[in-house]
């Protein structure tokens, strides 16, 4: 924590944060610190990195000012690069702050690589990452919790600091991945093709458990409307229709090539047995049993000729 009040400009790590080079704490600790309060509300530069995580339960708008620009980070993560001019708003946010220095983090070749490599986080002045995907959010919050438990007591390098550094590295890489998933592609034609492929892959993986367009849209980081637009452009049907197609094709495959009964097939598709009956009849005009019977009749008649 800062020891001496400084006018406006740069705060070095030695003055501002724990000697170990890393500090993890909640916003209210910063806002109650007598000396810090003198500095953080005016523009200043810090020679260390900031990660802000706004709690999903925060009731007010979480903002921060980066180079005089207001950035809202509710339900998001905000990463501020070092030496960027920024200031805290008067209204406190409910959440966590991680501050760390180059010296702490860049202790191995691998980690130095990460800093200097083409990473979005360390290229931009600041990066705002919305925490949309439930899976990503869980992982990020897990890393933050694990890190908080390991705040070092002093400067010495112990097994604890190594563990903490590894956690920080993984947290940053998780955030970086999330960033890269969002970077818009160059041409919109490639956009559609790319998303269509991703959608198909995801559907293949998750059709048994997820049938809603909203799930796939979230995973792809686009809106439901956009997803439907893409599927229409590429396949001439809505995203929902595409999902139904997948269910139907799989059902037909199972009917034709296995001896599973209706209930078992419904289970394989993740559908309720009665619903499956209705669904199949609606889309093919006959019941699954009749469909199977018909297939067998056709096969026998062919082989008879």
């Amino acid at each position, binding site marked *: 924590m800062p020891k001496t009040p400084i006018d406006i400009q740069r705060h070095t790590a030695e003055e501002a944060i724990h000697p170990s080079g890393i500090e993890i704490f909640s916003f209210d600790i910063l806002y109650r610190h007598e000396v810090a309060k003198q500095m953080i509300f005016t523009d200043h530069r810090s020679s260390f990195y900031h990660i802000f995580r706004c709690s999903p339960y925060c009731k007010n708008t979480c903002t921060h000012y980066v180079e005089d620009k207001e950035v809202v980070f509710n339900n998001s993560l905000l990463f501020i690069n070092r030496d960027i001019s920024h200031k805290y708003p008067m209204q406190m946010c409910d959440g966590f702050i991680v501050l760390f220095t180059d010296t702490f983090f860049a*202790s*191995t*070749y*691998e980690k130095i690589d*990460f800093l200097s490599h083409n990473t979005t986080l360390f290229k931009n002045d600041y990066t705002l990452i919305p925490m949309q995907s439930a899976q990503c959010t869980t*992982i990020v919050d*897990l890393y933050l919790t*694990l890190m908080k438990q390991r705040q070092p007591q002093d400067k010495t*390098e*112990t*097994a604890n600091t*190594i*563990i903490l550094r*590894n*956690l920080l*590295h*993984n947290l940053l*890489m998780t955030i*970086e*991945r999330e960033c890269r998933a969002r970077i818009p592609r160059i041409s919109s034609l490639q956009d559609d093709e790319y998303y269509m492929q991703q959608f198909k892959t995801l559907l293949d993986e998750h059709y048994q458990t997820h049938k809603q367009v909203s799930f796939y849209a979230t995973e792809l980081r686009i809106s439901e409307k956009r997803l439907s637009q893409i599927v229409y452009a590429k396949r001439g049907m809505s995203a929902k229709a595409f999902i139904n197609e997948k269910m139907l094709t799989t059902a037909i495959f199972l009917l034709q090539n296995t001896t599973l009964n209706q209930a078992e097939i419904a289970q394989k598709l993740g559908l309720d047995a009665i619903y499956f009956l209705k669904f199949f009849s609606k889309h093919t005009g006959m019941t699954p049993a009749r469909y199977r019977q018909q297939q067998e009749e056709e096969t026998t008649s062919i082989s008879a000729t």
Partner: protein
Amino acid sequence: MDSKNNMDFWVFALDDPELRQFYAIQANNPSLNYVIYIQEASQVFSFKAKQVLRLRDECMLLIDSYLVPVFFNLPLKGYTVIMTEKFCKTKDTKILLQLSFFHSSPEGIIDFGNVNDEQKKYMNLLVEEYHHPYDDMQPPMLRNLIFNILLLSPTNNYNIQLKSGHLLSYALQFMELTNEYAFHHMKKAFYADKIGITEEMLTRALRVTYQKTFREIITCKVLVEGIKNLICTNKSITQIAHELNYDASDFNKLFLQWKGLSPTDIRTNYQKLISYAENTY
């Protein structure tokens, strides 16, 4: 098997048939480390097998490759994490992971102790990460997770190793030398000389880093090599002894002193263990 293999890192569930396929191809690869995380060992009923193999719920073991078939024949629930030496020895290892000392454990098993909640969380993250599509960040992600798990193991003394600096480097150099010379040079002076330090310094380095004496480490090396030969080859005991620069009676004595078992016993026991695993389950 997919293109992750260029990472030198694999994760398999213990009951995954792909593990057998993997081992069938990799059995003779000496640079692989097998870390076994056992979640449940309750379906293994033999008390003796459990004792010998150190099986219990929520534990972690590092095993030599010849023991792998025993493990995947037993009804264990858990995972195996397989890493090459290259994966573990990044340019940066400031600490000495037990892995590189491993090859001096005659039993072929190093016990990393019971797994705590934090380690379980890392393990889950690791399995999840492994199944994520490959990108350039995956190797460091996995490496950080497995290293954290090993660092938290109660049987390791990393804090001491971190302090000992140059002693650590002498100990490492010594281990490298033993890989080449263990069976032909039994004198401390030889090794101390090669590294360029005094014998006292070498003793201290070994004591601080491994808590073992020179004698214990050299004997260990011989036992390990002996056991490997006994189990993986059909050579006669006399032949093995001679290859390791021992005469047959001294070789026998070595084993009897260590475990109270003769080389023949070791060979029979291992065969019994393998057939027990294969036939019972």
